[in-house]
């Protein structure tokens, strides 16, 4: 396990370095001038040039790259070109919002998706199966910004159960109210994925000899399903959860915007629109780290779920 982690960490460091370099180059290839964005459409060439100099974006690319890399190694991600505040501070301020949203959505998605998938599998080609497949198809087809608006119209405007602006965390009740709809919005998509994978994995497992043996021995059907079949069916589910976590974070961009929640997604869109190179670089490091960590955690969870898997 220890050797595995060291190996993965070393691999992650190389990945991170490659991503940093790639991001640095790609961001600067994309047209658009941060100085022009900051100064607005009335700025003259002299003012734009003065600001470019002040921001340091007039320096040779290689010099900027070295300065960026040396800063990154020292944990200094620079300051936002637009707000002048440290990138790390801005990222850390919103990171917990995205992490908690993703975690709650994931949990909720699994709580909905796993039982539904199992229910569909044990009722194969019957009404519950058709219904579940239809629902999961709807969940997969619905763009998250559309479902977000529908949730807001239904639960925030018509029923007034939840607020439209989901950014109040003053009390636990406020926290619950502000996370409920955004998390549900993301969870519906996650649940759709998980339902389909659980169903197909369960169908496969239910055909196995040991299930037939257990039935022949008179083990109660509920015990067979929940103790013997479902646990084995969860291995592909864990893979899917790991893979789709990145998609979930991607979907959180739109969810954060519609529900007006702070978060990495909202920050990255703002940074992209404003061509805030420093902020974008910092964000990319965070996203890369998240993907690397999630992949590593997925591997570890394999070993926990399936004792046959050895981490080496």
């Amino acid at each position, binding site marked *: 396990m220890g050797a595995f982690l060291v190996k993965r960490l070393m691999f992650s460091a190389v990945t991170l370095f490659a991503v940093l370099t790639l991001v640095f180059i790609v961001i600067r290839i*994309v*047209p658009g*001038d941060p100085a022009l964005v900051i100064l607005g459409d009335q700025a003259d060439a002299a003012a734009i040039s003065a600001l470019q100099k002040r921001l340091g974006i007039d320096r040779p690319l290689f010099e900027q790259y070295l300065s960026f890399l040396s800063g990154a190694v020292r944990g200094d991600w620079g300051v936002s070109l637009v707000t002048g505040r440290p990138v790390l501070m801005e990222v850390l301020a919103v990171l917990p919002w995205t992490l908690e949203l993703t975690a709650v959505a994931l949990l909720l998605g699994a709580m909905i998706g796993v039982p539904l998938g199992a229910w569909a599998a044990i009722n194969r080609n019957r009404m519950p199966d058709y219904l579940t497949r239809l629902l999961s198809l709807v969940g997969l087809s619905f763009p998250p910004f559309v479902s977000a608006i529908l949730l807001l119209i239904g639960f925030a405007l018509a029923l007034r159960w939840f607020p439209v*602006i989901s950014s109040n965390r003053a009390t636990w009740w406020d926290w619950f109210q502000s996370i409920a709809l955004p998390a549900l919005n993301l969870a519906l998509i996650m649940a759709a994925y998980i339902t389909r994978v659980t169903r197909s994995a369960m169908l496969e497992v239910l055909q196995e000899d040991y299930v037939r043996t257990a039935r022949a021995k008179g083990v109660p059907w509920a015990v067979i399903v929940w103790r013997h079949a479902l646990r084995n069916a969860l291995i592909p589910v864990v893979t899917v959860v790991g893979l789709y976590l990145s998609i979930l974070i991607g979907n959180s961009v739109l969810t954060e915007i519609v529900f007006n929640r*702070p978060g990495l997604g*909202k920050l990255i869109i703002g940074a992209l629109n404003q061509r805030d190179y420093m902020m974008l670089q910092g964000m990319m490091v965070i996203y890369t780290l998240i993907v690397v960590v999630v992949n590593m955690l997925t591997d570890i969870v394999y070993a926990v779920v399936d004792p046959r898997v050895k981490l080496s």
Partner: protein
Amino acid sequence: MKTTWLASATIAALLCATPALAQKTTLVVGMQTQDAGVLDPHLNSGTPGKALMNWMFNGLVRIKPGQSSPDHIEPDIAESWTSSPDGKEWTFKLRQGVQCHHDLGEFTSEDAVFSLKRAGTKDTSAFSSDYAAFDKVEAIDKYTVKITLKNAIPSLLGQVMSYHGGNMVCKKAADGPDKDGFAKKPAGTGPFVFAEYVPQQYVKLVANKKYWRGEPKIKEIIYRFIPSDAARDLALQAGEIDLMSGRQEQAWVDRIARTPGLKVLTFGPAEMSVIHFNMTQPPLDNIKVRQAIAHAIDRAGIHQFRGMSISRPAVSVVPSGYFGTHETAPLLPHDLNKARQLLTEAGFPNGITIKAIHTTLPGMMSFMEATQAQLKRAGITLDITPVEHPTFHQQIRQDLSQVVHFQAARFPIADVYLTHFFHSSSIVKTPTAVTNFSHCKVADAEITAARTEQNKEKQVALWKTAQEKIIAEVCAVPVNEMLMNWAHRDNLDLGYELKGSLNLGPPITENTRFTR
């Protein structure tokens, strides 16, 4: 007895409840943005920041709240002012007792001088070029400021009003050891004081209890950044926000106006959509081709398309209502036959194809697509390359687009629009470039002469001639003007009639209040 007791209890409850209901003093504003940008009035030129700055800062003078025309200039921090006959020396008498925010003391001439010099410095201001004609700014005494100009300019008062570089900052806040610290805790003298900034979420302002016009009735403003149009609409309907920036769409205006409890605000200055032709590139270097395009565009049709109550047809190459606009300028009329005939005369009987790099912003793109459809009828193919907004702004300044659609409002004096868009000093890709995309220079003499002309009638006549020359040369085709749309809940009383706002958002003054 029981009835009497119940009635008494009800009245008592109402008496208790009424003050509570009347005490709404927090104004929540929903702005269409991810963030307000840097909180420094001399650096923040974006639409989301302008309104916010206006609530925190004063100028030496201001335009009366609710108006956007310089005809309504009135004293702000300066009580009075005088100017020399040649318009080069201006003396302002400051009001005594105006207090800087955050207990930084009285605002004096020293602050005003510092602020104007700061506005004219490239490193600290996005508007430094506006102050190029400033020679000296001096504090004559504690309450007197003297400005000496190298040459007279069309509106000195426009440079010292609560707009762009004219916003007065307090020296102690902006001249400290941490110069970047000003944007973290900006200090002016306006009705509202900066209290808190939470990135991506909001800026909180509180009432300036020492405001010299009187303590504002609104005690707190939460300026929320809500980029999603739908979320802002829903939040307004749910009563979570009280005032919001809206969309430039007739359907949106009609829908909000029909919604009980909500009101729409439509006001100027209008942003004018102009099609600029790069006259250095074929086939647009041929005036007959430019005339053909101008004849092919139907301004009335575009007006109808963009919304009858939120737009109006353009009248000249300077937006209507500006000081110096030629309100009856000889724009080429819509005439498809004439357009086809001119193309044939220019040697293009089978039509032409012209290319435009264009922003993907929906409002601007829909205009361009409508124009594309109109041009097609005359045999002119407009080939649009859609790019993201920052890319659009960079590439049109690199002279990469044959045709540029630019939608903008400027300080409402003809000189600004004419200089930025049609004077040779502003031609793109030059050291003094601003936004002259057409490479137009036919009216340089008139634009330059009008700037220093002290006789108002002669000045206006020069601007009129300049506009006629630009139209005759067909450097650009002005098409349509779009007004701004905001919405608010009907319990909000702005305290004035809103016809215009240079800062692109409704001013929140000491008199703004909730009626219930």
